[in-house]
């Protein structure tokens, strides 16, 4: 279970996160919504440890991980699909996938599970191509596949559908639902594509200017006061 309590963060003198709190349970999909530039990515980076938290606490399965390095959080079972894909441009697709299993023992990491290839057949086709040569959407697929291979307890997805063709978005939706239903994994989904988020989420939070301004169960997501925070 991920627990975020009163997290604050600054870029220089600008206060980007102002006491953000949220909780993601196992088997639950939490949608993180908000307009452009409100601090969603920043929050996710803080959760992953890419950015330091100025004040506040992040704990995972009851353990305080606020001060841990990203790789320690990865080892603790948190996987991350960043905005902008961040694949290893000069490694082959296959090597990129193997990197997803960096936290596993080398025996477990010896083979890439067929599951991801089934989900993203293009990755199998392009196994030997360099990651950086892929098209934008292919890279996004690679980034998601990489995170799945980590067998995480929590998966953090920053706009995973960006640049992906509709049919695969649907597939990704199916996967997320599947993962959620397996019940051993928490999902934190930051998404602009409202309908997509709406369909998958159990709960949601909406951010505005670095603060959580609304939250609740998926059912309340379509309500006006929520929509208002997303409108321009």
């Amino acid at each position: 279970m991920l627990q975020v309590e009163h997290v604050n963060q600054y870029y220089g003198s600008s206060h980007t996160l102002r006491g953000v709190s949220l909780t993601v349970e196992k088997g639950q999909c939490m949608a993180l919504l908000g307009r452009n530039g409100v601090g969603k990515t920043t929050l996710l980076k803080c959760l992953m440890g890419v950015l330091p938290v100025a004040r506040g606490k992040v704990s995972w399965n009851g353990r305080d991980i606020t001060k841990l390095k990203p790789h320690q959080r990865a080892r603790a079972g948190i996987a991350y699909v960043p905005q902008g894909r961040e694949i290893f441009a000069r490694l082959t697709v296959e090597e990129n996938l193997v990197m997803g299993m960096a936290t596993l023992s080398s025996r477990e990491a010896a083979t890439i599970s067929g599951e991801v290839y089934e989900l993203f057949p293009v990755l199998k086709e392009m196994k030997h191509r360099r990651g950086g040569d892929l098209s934008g959407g292919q890279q996004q697929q690679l980034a998601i596949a990489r995170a799945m291979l980590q067998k995480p307890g929590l998966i953090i997805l920053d706009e995973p559908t960006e640049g992906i063709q509709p049919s695969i978005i649907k597939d990704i939706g199916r996967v997320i639902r599947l993962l959620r239903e397996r019940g051993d994994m928490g999902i934190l989904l930051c998404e602009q594509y409202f309908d997509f988020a709406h369909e998958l989420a159990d709960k949601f939070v909406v951010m505005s200017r670095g603060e959580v301004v609304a939250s609740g169960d998926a059912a309340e997501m379509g309500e006006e006061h929520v929509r208002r925070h997303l409108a321009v």
Partner: protein
Amino acid sequence: MANLLKTLAALLVLAFASLSAQAAIDPNLLKPLAGDDPDARIEAVARIAALANDDARKVLQALKDDTLYTTPDGGVLVVTDDRGWNPATGATGPLPDGVDGVVVNNRLRGAVDGALSGMALLSPDAGLRRTAAQALLARGVTPEQLPLVAKALAAETDAGIEATLRTAMAVADLQSPDVAVRKAAVIALADTGTASLRPQLQAMLDKNADGSHAEPDGDLRLAAANTLNAIDSRESRAEFVGNLFYGLSLGSVLLLAALGLAITFGLMGIINMAHGELLMIGAYTTYLVQALFRQYFPNALDWYLVAALPCAFFVAFAVGVLLERTVIRWLYGRPLETLLATWGISLILMQSVRTVFGAQNVEVANPSWMAGGVTVMGSLVLPYSRIAIIIFAALVVAAVWLILNKTRLGLFVRAVMQNRRMADCVGVPTSRIDMMTFGLGSGIAGLGGVALSQIGNVGPDLGQAYIVDSFMVVVLGGVGQLAGTVIGALGLGEVNKFLEPVAGAVLGKIAILVFIIIFIQRRPQGMFALKGRSVE
């Protein structure tokens, strides 16, 4: 010289006729050795050699080894381990006061060498005979020595030595008054002769002042011309192979110098100006290991180099890790600033070595198994030390390649270097990988330093001599491309060695640099540039 050899040979023949001559050496024979009349000393060497017994050999060997001493009373002593053996009496005892080394100059040394190798021609040890035969060939056989050589030839069982002796005979036969003998010799030499015969063969073709031929026999002139041609073409082939080899060996040196940088700079993007100093640290470690062996394992001295390899690797590795932890780690993502900091590190390392070891070079000797070389194609010497470096370079490259491409660690290294933050996020302990990678690059530089210590200076400035070349190699090959570094180094080595004979060392070097500039115009990302989107 000819005169001397004449006496020498005559005496040798005599001597071998009565090989059983024995007992101590006549002091009168030894006396001139202690004097300072050069001609008398040479004469004395010849006479002693004529004795052709063990004692004589011991005296001559001592002269050669600088272990022959004079006593105040005009006698000589062969000194081993603070005890003197008196060849005049056969007695061995402690050294008296006032002994002084016999001064040997090149002329005397030449005579001693000649005498010793003459004696060795009939030695039961094939190795000695071979060396002697080769020395004889190199020095040239005079007609007076022919009987001796003939005798040795008759007794010789080893085909190789026999061939050498035959060639030596043929060379001598070139001076024979008998046209037929000369002709046979000229023809025989077509297959074996070396460039040193060229003046003699050329002389056969020359015309005298009056226009007549120096060599009256026309057939013989033709044969001589043919032999000359054969020698020339063999020489030019040897020269080509030689250049190829020199280029390969220079390339291997460049490669060893650059390989560590290919990791710290090529892979990690650190403009590591202290790379040269890591080479230097490897070389100084070699020096220390050598000193240690000299002190504690003098018997195993020849193997100090083997011990130096892991030591140099670990010392350089440790220094690398230290640098990474204290300085470099703060500079990832700021590649240009690494230039500044590592420049500072380089100054400090250099001055530290100067303070500890002095500004002068220190001595690192080749182990004896690396001394000398194989002679191929008649005249081309391929030094063992160079061969060893080529093999060593190949091994190190193979090891690096395996580590980077066939291990998980290698994959992590490459991933971290491409996208540190994301590697961190998938669970790679990046700072440990950084440390290990920089350490690995440094350690490999240390290995390079061991190799460099075998062919050049070991001094505080060692690194400065290689830093520019190393960067050129890495960049020429394409930053981050191991294969590029290998090809770049070997290519530069070869181009250099084929240019140097034409342009000279200075213009050759300039030409190389211009070549690099032009080459980069053609391939702005180096030889093995990655193409496509992934490089953006």
